[in-house]
């Protein structure tokens, strides 16, 4: 099942000529970002991405879960004035889910562009989130779009789609917890430039938590202190430490009146582990930090 972040535009339902025949206005309208998404840069990632986009170099965003990869890309799409078509990859994702398929309705069959085709045809940024979760044969579909050819063969439709000049493919993955069977193939990996987005420095992360959760700086700093220390347990009872996203969740609960300790237990400690020893250690850490 293909999951697209925004619902497919209704106007596309009758787009039986592949999006090129009937003027349906802006087919990417639902994917355009109206307001600036908050993003606090921790390095030179904004400038690097903008340069990569100008050169149309496909980009791979690497980083642990919840560190802000998706938010960064939303911010960049807004900054560059491009629509963002996001696809959360999973192991049941098929090539048809990416490129499109013929659908049957009362009028007969019609072609429905998939999200990748939609972005390539109309010039959006296509974001394949957690691309290693997709089957490897599926990821091969993106190869022609990520080299000098910039084409997408639609075999079932008999169309060779040349990507719109504004199109860019971006993928993300978390190198931390994939096993060898789910690693990216070298032939896929080497088509991308990579931006590594780790957790920001503590002071910057506290700024982010305070902004996103609407909590004061002191509480944000304490939550970040807790988060940073849980990350020391990566590989020692935890697959990952607390993400920035988790810290924001805790902050949001606290901002709505939940005791900070309770908020952190609900949003950080309990979700992180079911292991009694790790849980006990995290509970002690929570008491120490807050």
């Amino acid at each position, binding site marked *: 099942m293909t999951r697209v972040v925004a619902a497919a535009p209704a106007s596309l339902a009758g787009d039986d000529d592949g999006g090129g025949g009937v003027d349906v206005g802006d087919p990417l309208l639902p994917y355009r970002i109206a307001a600036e998404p908050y993003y606090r840069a921790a390095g030179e990632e904004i400038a690097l991405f903008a340069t990569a986009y100008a050169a149309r170099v496909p980009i791979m965003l690497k980083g642990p879960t919840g560190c802000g990869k998706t938010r960064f890309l939303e911010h960049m799409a807004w900054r560059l004035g491009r629509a963002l078509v996001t696809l959360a990859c999973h192991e049941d994702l098929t090539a048809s889910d990416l490129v499109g398929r013929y659908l049957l309705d009362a009028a007969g069959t019609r072609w429905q562009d998939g999200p990748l085709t939609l972005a390539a045809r109309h010039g959006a940024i296509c974001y394949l989130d957690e691309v290693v979760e997709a089957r490897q044969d599926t990821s091969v579909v993106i190869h022609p779009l990520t080299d000098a050819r910039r084409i997408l063969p639609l075999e079932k439709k008999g169309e060779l789609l040349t990507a719109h000049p504004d199109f860019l493919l971006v993928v993300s993955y978390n190198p931390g917890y994939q096993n060898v069977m789910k690693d990216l193939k070298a032939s896929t990996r080497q088509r991308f430039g990579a931006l590594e987005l780790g957790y920001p420095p503590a002071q910057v992360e506290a700024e982010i938590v305070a902004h996103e959760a609407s909590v004061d700086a002191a509480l944000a700093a304490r939550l970040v202190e807790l988060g940073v220390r849980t990350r020391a347990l990566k590989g020692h*009872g935890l697959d990952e430490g607390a993400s920035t996203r988790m810290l924001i969740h805790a902050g949001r609960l606290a901002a709505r009146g939940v005791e900070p300790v309770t908020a952190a237990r609900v949003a950080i400690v309990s979700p992180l582990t079911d292991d009694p020893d790790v849980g006990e250690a995290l509970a002690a850490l929570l008491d120490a930090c807050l």
Partner: protein
Amino acid sequence: MTWGVALPARTGDGGGGGRGGGGGRGAGATEGGARAAALFVRALLGGRRGQVPVRIAPAGATRAYGDALGLHLPASFPMYGSGSALARRARFAAAAHLAAHVRFGDGRLPRGGLRPIQIVLVSLFEDARVECLAARELPGLARLWAGLHTAEPTDLATFPALCARLSRALLVPGYEDPHPIVRKARALFFHPDHPLGSAQGSRRLGSLLGNDVGQMRLAFNAKDYVVEPPYRDDHRLLWHEPSVDDDASAPLEEADVEERVAPGEAPAPGRERPEAANGNPAGRDRPLAGRVRAAPPIAAVCDETARARDGATYPEWDYRIGVSRPLRHPVTGLTRQPLHRAPKRRRGWQATSRAG
């Protein structure tokens, strides 16, 4: 059992903990909660100072300690009851206290000419210093430790009781104690000019206060002395073991220390001091330093822990699977400091390399 350098992998754990934290309670998980404490230490240190092994101390050890093999936590805190909430709190408090020494410690201190009482007091100030710095980073640690300080101004006027009151006064701001030594210690410790960043300040205050306490003629038996409250370590981590230089520079006499009594208290029958027999009952006109013989290291007064240090067994590092395992071939490792004064550098895990 060691937790820390490489936490033993659980069944199906993959070495990195169960995915999503899953996995049942492993075989070693119930061992006094040592695994949880080891994880707590790791999180507190945040990856600083490398990986510090955390071990269960041999049976009988009632205080935590640190040595070249790592940090050692008592298997239980019987004074708090087996498996009680207070015992669990003490275990985490002990782990946090040792972690504070690792994080903010200033290396091992030379004993020099310090008397046993001064060594105790320097250690006490050093405990307070590292706890103060740790609590600045993580204020909840102060609450954790403070709940285990139970000394009161009404406690008996003994040297251990006075130390317990000093410890509480230096940690708990709201604790009121009218004892002049306590008030002086507090004033000195929290004086803006007192350097919290190094152990030199602790040494200075301990030496200074040791002279005052010595004038009080409080009973002190170095062999029986144990640190209070029980979560605090036995201080062997703080001190170089006695060297030839120390012995030469500190011709101290232990007997007077053991037999010293509180003012107005009669010595035990048959244990009168030689000075008393010679018409110098209190010996107050002699310099204190000249009346104290070198006591055994405070850190080594606990025979059980000393035996543990002497007869340590090392886990075997299996490079293929990347974990430490129990020895297949019994080996006893003897750990000794060189007799000459070693250059100031860390050993074992303290040099951020793996121990054992």
